């Protein structure tokens, strides 16, 4: 335990040093770009530093490393001298560490994913890969495999895709309806509103893992709450977790997701001026007409982003399905695309295959968001 703590401290120190070096580098390049010796000096220093650090970290291929450092530094020095010319120094220096981090941990993995999808990394080739870094190239084989062979043991891609759409639609529908009803109730309730609101956000506030595992227990066939209650009503026990896993997951996810929508919609309701309702009431509008013609149109700017966010979250939700059906021998009747992706990679160890599947899922999501943006822009212009 002590050694791993030391490792963490070492890492933090290393990180601080890396940030300091980066900032120093930027500082030199922003402040001294106009000096006559700027380009020649930095291009001379860079290979030396590369050689020293490469040697001390015992990286192979020193000559090519030195050459690359000189080349990169030449380009960078020229850019700083003739293009950047010391402009925007502070924002760039402030943003550089964060964006380099994002680049290394988001952009690079995405590129690596494409590389993986075109090569063949699986349980039989992974040992060779971790020793030599070499994996056989297979081209687009995995992309065709995504559509022809099952990501899990039997369910097909088409089924998973359809189920994902259904799952997203049903969940978002119940999140919004449930959230809307609760928000209306809260908005029309004057006493204890804060107290109710506190209790109602608990599903969102609880650690998801605990909430899901606890609810899964309640669906257990013999000792879970649901079947105990059904039993008292004289209904035979239902095998929720094995035979109705999709329904179980949906119920759990609806329970988890309603509070978020409720809070967002309540915020929207409270920002609608009472005068509209007073005016409508004087004109004799019924409660339903007020809801239809005042509340809903005025909630649009709040609901739009919330529904988009909710749909993306639901589409990408692995937690519920994996925690309910993920253990050995779990059913695959509830799996959607992303949970199948997780299982294909980490239960079945089909790395390259899941990389290809991940790219396909990403493209689907991308196309949906483009369509959604077009659609919502179009309807916005209709409503003015």
């Amino acid at each position, binding site marked *: 335990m002590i050694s*791993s*703590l030391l*490792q*963490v401290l070492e*890492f*933090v120190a290393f*990180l601080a040093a890396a940030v300091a070096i980066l900032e120093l580098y930027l500082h030199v390049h922003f402040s001294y770009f106009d000096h006559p010796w700027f380009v020649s000096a930095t291009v001379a220093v860079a290979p030396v530093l590369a050689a020293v650090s490469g040697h001390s970290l015992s990286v192979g291929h020193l000559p090519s490393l030195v050459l690359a450092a000189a080349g990169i530094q030449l380009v960078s020095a020229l850019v700083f001298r003739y293009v950047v010319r010391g*402009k925007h120094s*502070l*924002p760039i220096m*402030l*943003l550089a*560490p*964060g*964006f380099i*981090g*994002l680049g290394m*941990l*988001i952009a690079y993995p*995405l590129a*690596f*994913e494409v590389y*993986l999808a075109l090569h063949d990394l699986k349980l039989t080739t992974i040992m060779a890969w*971790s020793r030599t870094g070499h994996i056989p190239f297979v081209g687009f084989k995995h992309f065709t495999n995504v559509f022809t062979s099952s990501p899990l043991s039997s369910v097909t891609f088409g089924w998973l895709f359809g189920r994902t759409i259904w799952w997203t639609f049903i969940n978002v529908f119940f999140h919004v309806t449930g959230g809307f009803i*609760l928000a209306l*109730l809260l908005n*029309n*309730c004057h006493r204890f509103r804060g107290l109710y609101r506190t*209790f*109602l*956000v*608990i599903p969102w*506030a*609880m*650690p998801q*893992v*605990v909430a899901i595992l*606890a609810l899964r227990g309640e669906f*257990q066939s013999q000792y879970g*709450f649901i079947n105990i209650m059904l039993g008292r009503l004289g209904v035979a026990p239902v095998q929720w977790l094995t035979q109705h896993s999709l329904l179980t997951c949906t119920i759990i996810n609806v*329970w988890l997701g309603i509070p978020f929508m409720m809070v*967002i919609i309540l*915020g929207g309701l409270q920002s609608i001026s009472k005068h509209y309702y007073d005016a409508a009431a004087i004109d004799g509008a019924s409660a339903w007409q007020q809801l239809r013609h005042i509340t809903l149109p005025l909630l649009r700017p*709040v609901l739009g982003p*919330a529904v*988009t966010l909710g749909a*993306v979250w639901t*589409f990408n939700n692995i937690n519920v399905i994996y*925690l309910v059906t993920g*253990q050995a021998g779990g059913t695959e009747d509830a799996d959607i695309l992303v949970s199948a*992706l997780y299982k294909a*990679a*980490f239960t079945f160890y089909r*790395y390259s295959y*899941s*990389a290809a599947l*991940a*790219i396909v899922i990403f493209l689907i*999501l991308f196309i949906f*968001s483009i369509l959604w943006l077009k659609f919502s822009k179009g309807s916005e212009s209709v409503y003015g």
Partner: protein
Amino acid sequence: MVETPQEVAAVLAAHHRRQAVQAVLIHAALIGACLICLYPLLRMISVSLRPGDRLISTDLALIPAGASASSYLRVFKETEFLLWLWNSLVITCVTSFIGVSLAATGGYAFSRFKFPGNKLGLTLLLGTQMIPAGMLLLPLFLMIMRLGLINTYLGMIVAYSVTSLPFSIWILKGYYDTIPRSLEEAALVDGTSRFGAFYRIVLPLSTPALSIAFLFNFTQAWNEYLVARVVLCDAQRYTWTLGLFELQGQYLTQWGMFAAGSFMVTVPVLLIFLYSSKWLISGLTLGGVKG
């Protein structure tokens, strides 16, 4: 038409009655909804208090007959519960610290400076939220494996460090936008550098937003399960989410310990959330409404 005072009174009374009935119905519905929301928590308390010989039962009473704290003691004695909490704490604190420091400077750059790529950068940050988590996990896992960081704190810290960064930058940018620029300008006139003005004036004024960003980073990493499942394999290194998952497992006999452990983890998280929820929500909607 209503004319006499008696008739007016009757109409008013009917109106009040209708309102009273409506209020009762609303309260009844809300109480029902609250019970559904609270239910798993109540049940967790109930199961955790069951005596050792009656763990498995179809009893639904909130406080079971012969309630005892034995499950709470057993969690500490028979499992590595404290170690799991400690592991989670180390990983979470370091990642939150890294995340908040990067977000504090990045958010300031987006809030105060016009530079090419300002808008694009903010949009790209939002775009990263669309990437399915499972998609990044595979290459990250392979990178961590290649670096020999499987089953270490470090591997977890690397995997977590930037996940909450885009959102934190958005929260902090929004908060910096509300701080008047004249404060910094005054400091600049008095001879501080641009960075000095940020460090001495803006940062101290932003303590509430910084703590919210920290709490957000903290809860994200603290509650995470899927990455931990992949990176950690040794029970000595488990975070509490993995540990509780093992306990819940298939063995019903450990229900009591699972419930006790869950309850102890949930209460502080709930309190933190309730404390910070107002801020988190405004931050969450900010991106959608403004962007």
